């Protein structure tokens, strides 16, 4: 399985701090650059959508 890059656990004061930082959109977006990279989101392979299978579960694909 493609697992995220190892990163230190967040708990206690550090987790509280991150929860505050991510409430500010600009700071959140900066942190998200690292989170996306660690999770491998930019490296996800491109997969073509077939007309008959727009949803994995047979439902309309969700939108953010």
């Amino acid at each position: 399985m493609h697992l995220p890059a190892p990163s230190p656990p967040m708990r206690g004061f550090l987790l509280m701090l991150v929860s505050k930082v991510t409430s500010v959109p600009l700071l959140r977006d900066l942190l998200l650059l690292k989170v996306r990279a660690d999770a491998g989101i930019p490296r996800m392979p491109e997969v073509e959508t077939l007309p008959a299978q727009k949803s994995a579960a047979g439902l309309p694909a969700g939108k953010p």
Partner: protein
Amino acid sequence: MSALGVSALSAAFKAGADDPVQALARARESARRGKDDKAILWNIDGAETEAEASRARWKSGAPLSPIDGVPLVVKDCIDVAGYPTTNGTKFLMDKVPKDAALVARLRAAGAVIFAKTNMHEFGIQPTGVNPHHGTARNPWDGERIPGGSSSGSAVAVASGIAPAAIGTDAGGSVRIPAALNGLVGLKPTFGAVPTEGVAALTRDLDHAGPIAWTVEDATLLFEALAQVKIDRALAPGKLALLTDFFEGAEPFVIDTVRNAASDAFGGLPEVRTPLCAWATAVEFVIVGTDASALMAGLLKQHAKDLGWDARTILQLGGGLGQRDRDKADRLRAGMRRELDSLLETHDLLIGPATGKVAPKLHPTSRRSGELDTTELSRLAAVTFPANLTGHPSITVPCVPKDSSALPVGLQLIGRHGDEARVLAAARAIEAKRGLRHPPRWWGL
């Protein structure tokens, strides 16, 4: 233990050796004795009246179903009329007016819902750590996580409080706590069990399913939840090992699952799932975008009341863009095609239910919650695919009966709608491995 299982209780009711009123009284007393283990959030009043009605039905030889009179617990994201659905939070305290559809089905089958169980806040992580209500205690080792997000449901069953429970699963939240507590956990096909009245984490990854001691118990509950009849004479058919699912898992987990599969089914072919191997990234994007959208109002109104981990995940999810989401949706569709294609030539696919045994819980995390993406992905990377594709998936305990090791779950994935074969293969594993009792036990 066996006296508390669903099918054992049902047989005892039928034989007149036990009755629903006594069974409920024992469950209540077990819950009282184990209350410090934080599995239960709400005790449901009025269950005694239902148990008395069930006793009368059994006495007259007219039970509503095999689960008539069996005391059950449900996760606290599932509506039970007259009680709050906290969804693991400390602020969602309004009583709901109506039972969830699945609760109505269980009650129509005669089941006695007597308590609601603890969970990870919003079901947003697979650890079960809850800083608001306390973290349910893993009866195999209190220093380890119970698994989640249906933590209280699994702990209530594993520690002898309830014969079985209902959990929900958007990324492994039935199967992970079941596996870490030595239980059977079934995530049915997407849509097989209604989710009306169940608080949603996502738009179309959420499933509800049973957590139980035995495969037969899970079968009985699934029949009531999905209103279907399972063919118990079905053979497991052709199986294969999903090699990607073993990559990154602990050696003990790999050996235990492979040995159990080999003992039950002999030598098996190995197949690869290169797209499903990306499940962690896809799940992160879909859960992040869906949950942040569905809970935007709650986040705005209650940010300071949320656990720091839930708040962080929702806020990060809100920053993911449409491009990430579209790519994840396309990859998800590819994963579905990949599994469907493998299931054209094989009836069932096998892998571990978690990549590791229950990890230790840091003392600070009990108070603050935690966000540990390394542990999270190693636990749950292998449960994500079946949520993303909607295929039925079960975990069944696979540590040998005479071992004192922590529980490990073997996962089986089948074709859409083919729960019967998934359950048949799980029964074959169970027959080779048997049940093990945790050291901490409140059952009577």
